[in-house]
């Protein structure tokens, strides 16, 4: 994929006909590298970015540690730990808080299900929303096997380049 197209893709600037072309064709094997090049340049961090984890969140090689970092710079700590445990949390667990977002009767019964909003403590971007019954454990959505992935891709881990 051309870098220019990758930039537009990341920015959500491609029209549906353009996206359809991309979806219809075979996947470009270099996509990961092209997208990572764009992201790394935009983030401008000295430490190597290993993987985009979610909107705003990246796994970064920081010395011997792999940490989750928001694009605002806030660090959530070790990527083996759930980043949500370092987030700010707002729980919509009563009628009035749910009604702030949804019309009458078009939301859950708060006794049966609450909305948990996880914000970045640095920039207060909304990073994830959980819709779960009260008392349900916080979900650890994604634990990538980064070493395994780079092995798959036949790519050197950026950490070795930086050390």
């Amino acid at each position, binding site marked *: 994929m051309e870098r220019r197209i990758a930039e537009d*893709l*990341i920015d*959500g600037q*491609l029209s549906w006909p353009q*996206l359809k072309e991309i979806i219809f064709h075979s*996947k470009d094997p270099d*996509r*990961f590298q*092209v*997208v990572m090049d764009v992201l790394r340049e935009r983030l401008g961090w000295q430490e190597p970015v290993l*993987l*985009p984890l*979610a*909107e*705003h969140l990246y796994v970064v090689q920081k010395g011997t540690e792999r940490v989750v970092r928001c694009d605002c710079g806030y660090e959530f700590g070790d990527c083996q730990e759930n980043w*949500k445990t*370092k987030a*700010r*949390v*707002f*729980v919509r667990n009563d009628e009035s808080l749910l009604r*702030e*977002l*949804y*019309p*009458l*009767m*078009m*939301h*859950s*019964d708060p*006794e*049966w*299900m609450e*909305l*948990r909003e996880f*914000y970045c403590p640095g920039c*207060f*971007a*909304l990073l*994830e*929303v959980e*819709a*779960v*019954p*009260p*008392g349900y*454990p*916080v*979900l*650890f*959505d*994604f*634990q*990538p*096997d980064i070493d*395994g*992935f780079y*092995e*798959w891709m036949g790519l050197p881990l950026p950490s070795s380049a930086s050390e």
Partner: protein
Amino acid sequence: MDVAKRDVGRAPIGWDGKTLLEMLEESERLFQETGRYQGIDQLELKEGDHFRYERAFAKLRGALVAARETALHISASPIVRNIGELCFALYTPEGDSVAVSTGIMVHVHTMSEALKWMVRNNYEQDPGIRSGDIFTSNDPDVGNVHTADVHTMVPIFWEDELVGWASGVTHQVDIGANTPGHDPITPTSRFEDGFHLTCERIGEDEHIRQDHRLRSQRAVRSPLYWDLDEKCRTAGAYLIRDAVHRFIAEEGIDYYKRFTREVVEEGRRIFMARVRERLLPGRYRAVTFVGIPFKEEAWQPRARKDFICHAPMEIVIGRDGDFFLTMEGASAPGFHAFNCAEGPMQGAIWVLLSQMLVYDGKLNDGSYLALRHYFPPGTWCNALDPQLSYSTPWAFLIPAFTGLTRCLSRALFARGYREEVVCGYGFTGDAIQGGGTLALNGEYWPAANFEISAVGLGASAVHDGLDWGYAMWNPESDQGDAELWELLEIGIPYLARRVKANTAGYGKYRGGSGWEALRVLVGNRDAELYMARADGITFMGSGIFGGYPQATSYRLWSRGSEIMDRVSKGQPYPLGDEPDSGEFEEMLGGDVMRRSTAMMMPQIFHDKDVLHYVLSGGPGCGDPLERPAQRVVDDMNEGIFNERIARDVFGVVASRDEGQDKWILDEEATDARRQEIRRLRAERSLPYEEFWQQERQRIEQGQLAEPVRGMLRESMGLSEAWAQEFRAFWKLPEGFQP
């Protein structure tokens, strides 16, 4: 009696003198030993002559699609004829799908399960499998989702050998359950699920037996539709059989046999390659819940219970590309219509992976063989009890599999394939079901609307979800014309269909929007009607990366409305419902019922009663505050969001230009509002530790609602692993019960 061992001395019909059971056992053994379908190492035909191989696949695939497109015209049911709720597939003698048509593909694998059930129960000996036989099945415990989906399976012989099966499925308007309709919600056991056919031979010598026709037409409320649907499936299967005969005549029997083996193995390899190409190793988790408030409303004593279906999903992808899906921790089955057998869960994996990963590959049971799964026995998703009700497993299955989309989307996003992300889909339910009787001539009309197959798709990470146009179980979903449904549901014409504001899940990229309809009863003696959506008091899944779940549904109707007076006076009537406005109540009058539970048990309605329903939107992706403000204003102008939601969720302020009849963005006010919302986030949110303490306190002090406690106890009782994880997360003592 051990049926499988019964032998009445028929000669084997499998390949090279083997029985079908021997072929199936050998196939499974070879797969177990080698990890490859039939132990195939080299794709000799493919590597030997690519063009011939690809042409051969195109011939079979083309025959299947042509069979579907031709056969559907035999049906009279709009569900089949116009919406295309049918599908055909070609199987190996052991029951593995080789190629499939378009259509309701979720059933390709359930038909495979039914065929294998026949092989394992030694149908080869009793009742025998002969050229010209026709078998039919709709038993969910054997290989189906629910009784309303009926499978017809025709053996394909070449000389004295069975070379495969041609099978077709159609979705019935009515299946003779304890209430009219195709997704009944009142059954509590098999004995209320309607007409069951458990892999029965219904025809011989290419002729459907009269005793079966008489019996089946007396077993359902819509015999005409049943009869023509059965002919449609049978004709489609014969078209496929004939195409296979032509194929063998052209290519030779040896080529056909080897080809059908290789192409399944290739399907498996394509899936494995897609996993490596698009995903990444690691552990993925998602969870979905369905709240069922039946304590007050259920018909039968055993069913009167408020409860929550717990659908946890974990996917682990190994460095070797191994794909393992487990639902460890799922809650229990019960006395309700939403239990699910393992087969439909396998079918659901297959149909979603065919849309997310292998849509351009060779689609067959190879994809199914390429992954491992665990649906815990004795839970709602592998109930293992044929006497339970399986009338509407969709109510749990559809929400549960939004977890698969979220899990895969995290991988697709990380790999840079953002255009492939899809964070879920809407619930395909809520249109009216039941039936009525016309006052004029006493004629029965069924209500079995399939406009449910057009709900909102979840957002991707680069664009909004598809509006009102998606069904997870049929990639070719279609809403159907209102006029068409009125031909079927003649006693309840439409007053309106329109976009339902605020049903699209909020996000930087919004989910696809849902829509709503209003219907009025006219010209009836009476009608027994019900409506059902799984997401009434619980959200169906969630969004991803900060996107919100789509709005839930609610129930609204007016008995004895003033609609006819308004029409006769030429006065306007509502074209939908804005819950916050009270317009529906004001304009229609009558005895209005508005409530948040989305399941409405069957009730008798009369002329002038008006019923309203909402078809679901899809969930959103990303923080709604990051949605470009002008796009939100465009949404407002298209009726997707109203002014309040734009302001309070997206932080977008717009003013109304009455001259141009549209909303205009107020950039300054939008900036201020978005800053205000960010400030609110900072003020109202808690550090994680405080949140954790508060939630834990609720558990410890027994402050959870009974359905929540019941769900937690149920899952902890069924899975020690899940119980330990729950206690460890909240640091609760050993043996603690919520």
